[in-house]
Structures are given as structure tokens and as C-alpha cells.
């Protein structure tokens, strides 16, 4: 279970620039650390984040092992029409998590 936290306005004026914050619970294990017995802790990272706005990708990010645990992103977009923001995170093995946020544009 990966917990997701999203902070974004529910309503916006047409063409307003809005701030989106998104955080996901994930260890972002680099693959460079060792455990108490000296064994390598295998790499386990999210590699991709995407935000779709009614299906169109409006923000995308590539994550590398240097990104801290529980990655937190803040980004901005122009609110042009009502619809849904779909945010998804995909890890190195193709597993993904997502959350949807409804936005009403007056």
C-alpha cells in the first residue's frame, strides 16, 4: 500500500495558474546501501511520474536513485477547462499507483 497525498484547488478561474502538490509514500531505495549484515539492499525506486489533464499529459518527471524517499513534487498548470487531473507513479518494475483530482473551472 502506497499512500498518496494531493493538494490542489477544487475550483479555479479560467486560465488561472494553479499549484499542484503531490506526495507518495515510497522508500526510493537507491541500491547503493547495505543492511546490518553487509548485504546490498536491492534498488527499489519510482522511475516516472505523470499528470494527465483530461487525458493530455501536462507534466511528467523522471526519477533517479538520488531522489529522496517519499518523493514530493510541486508544479503548476493553467486551468483551461473543468475535468480531472490524473496523477500516476510507476516504479522500476512497472507497478503503478494513481490518484485523481477533480477540478472545476468557472
Amino acid at each position, binding site marked *: *500500500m502506497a*499512500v498518496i*497525498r494531493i*493538494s490542489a484547488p477544487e475550483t479555479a478561474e479560467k486560465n488561472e495558474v494553479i499549484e499542484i*502538490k503531490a*506526495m507518495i*509514500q515510497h*522508500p*526510493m531505495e537507491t541500491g547503493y546501501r547495505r543492511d546490518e549484515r553487509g548485504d546490498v539492499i536491492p534498488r527499489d525506486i519510482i522511475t516516472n511520474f505523470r499528470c494527465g489533464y483530461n487525458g493530455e499529459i501536462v507534466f511528467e518527471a523522471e526519477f533517479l536513485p538520488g531522489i*529522496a*524517499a*517519499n518523493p*514530493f513534487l510541486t508544479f503548476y498548470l493553467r486551468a483551461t477547462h473543468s475535468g480531472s487531473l490524473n496523477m500516476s507513479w510507476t516504479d522500476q518494475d512497472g507497478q503503478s499507483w494513481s490518484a485523481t483530482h477533480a477540478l472545476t473551472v468557472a
Partner: protein
Amino acid sequence: MRAAFAFLLGTLAACNPQPANTGAEMDLPRGVVRSGYEFLQPETRILQDDDFENPGLLWVQQGAVLFETPMQGGPACASCHGEGGRLLTGAAAHYPAMESQSGELVNLEGRINLCRERYQGAPALAYESSELLALTAYTASLARGMEQSVNITGAAAPYYDAGRAYFFARKGQYNLSCHQCHDENWGRQLRGDTISQGHGNAFPAYRLEWQDFGSLHRRLRDCDSGIRAEPLPYGSETYVAVELYLAKRAEGLVMESPGVRR
């Protein structure tokens, strides 16, 4: 970390020679009690105070969901303790506390596991498992901002004494006690860190060094390993007793969990 403690050892040995533990040392005076929060960098304080960015809130949120989820062998926590934990508001501020059925001192983690076993027909959760951390974080968050206040009288008294004794005992290859760092040297630098008074009011907390959320026992294990003493097992009776001593010693401070620490 190792270098940091070696450095401290030199400093303490040079300017603060201590007699062997006599049991007569002074507790932290009432008037000077200060939360570890006050010793943090401003950036770390901002992270703790932010209602969105505090990473500990991920565990609180996870705990809120678990709290409302019925188990196969019994009802959800919420069906006994109220929707949104209504009936547990402030409870965490009084832990550790004596448990009447077993006659033992339990901390919050132990209390939650008792409820799972007794009332939910579910096995106890492992210490530091994400579920136990989440339920503890959630329950502790219901007491956020409230003053810590524990009962150390009656059957709790021997636990308090044991916790205090551990706090004052020198141990490890560095032969240091909790007391020497957290009563006698708080406010001083230990390399990059400022030594705080060692209160537990922010725990369970998110530590940037861990890149993870963890219990007070994980923090205590770090302090014990720092002085090259054998850390006690998670949930050990002695650590729960130390927790009681710490909670009494921190009286007047408010609960900060989910705290953020370096």
C-alpha cells in the same frame, strides 16, 4: 556518526569528568524543559509545521484508513473508539500507562496490539511494521498539541524507577549515559547536531537521516548504538520504562507527533 561520537567523547572527557554512577544525579530541572523542536534548523521546523509537506502525515493518513477498516476476526478500531478516533482524543498523551488486565506497563504500540489481539482476533503487529507505525502515528496525532502527562504512582512507580536508572547508567564502549548528553550537555554541538534534551514528545516521527518514519524505540536504539552500547530489542520492557521516565521528565511539553527530526 562514529566520528561525531568520538569527538564528543574527547570533549566530555576533557571538560566534564564524571564520578561513577551514584544514583544521586540531578534530574532535568522543571523550569528548563524544551522540546527537541527548538533545537532544529528552521527548515526542519517548517517541514514539521506544514500540514501538507510533513512526510509523517503519510503514516497518519495510512493509519486513519486502517482505523476504519474491519478485521476478519473483529470490528474496526473505529467501531469501538468512534469515527475519526473521536473517543481516543488525547489518549496518547497519557502513555505509557498501566494496563489493568495484565498489570504491566504498556506504551501506545503495546496498547494497540492488545486491542488487536483481544478485540479484533488479529495477531500483534511487528514493531516498525508500516501498519503499527501508521496506527501509532494516527492515534498519537489525535493528541497533537496536548500536554504530555503520565501517571508514575502505584504500580507504575517501579517502572519509572527502572527507566530513570537506565537513563543515568553509563554504558557502551564510550561509557556514557543518556543523562550526560541530554541533561548535562544539551544545547551543545555534537558535530552537525545540536544535542537536545532528549524528549520523546515528537515520536513516532519522521527522521531525515532515516528517510523514514520510526518509533521512539528506533530513536533510543540509535542513541544506544551511538555510544556503542548493545541496543535493546524493539518493545523491550526496559525501553517502555525509559519511555515512561522520558514522558514524566517532559511534562509540560505538548505532543508533536508526527514530528520531523534531522
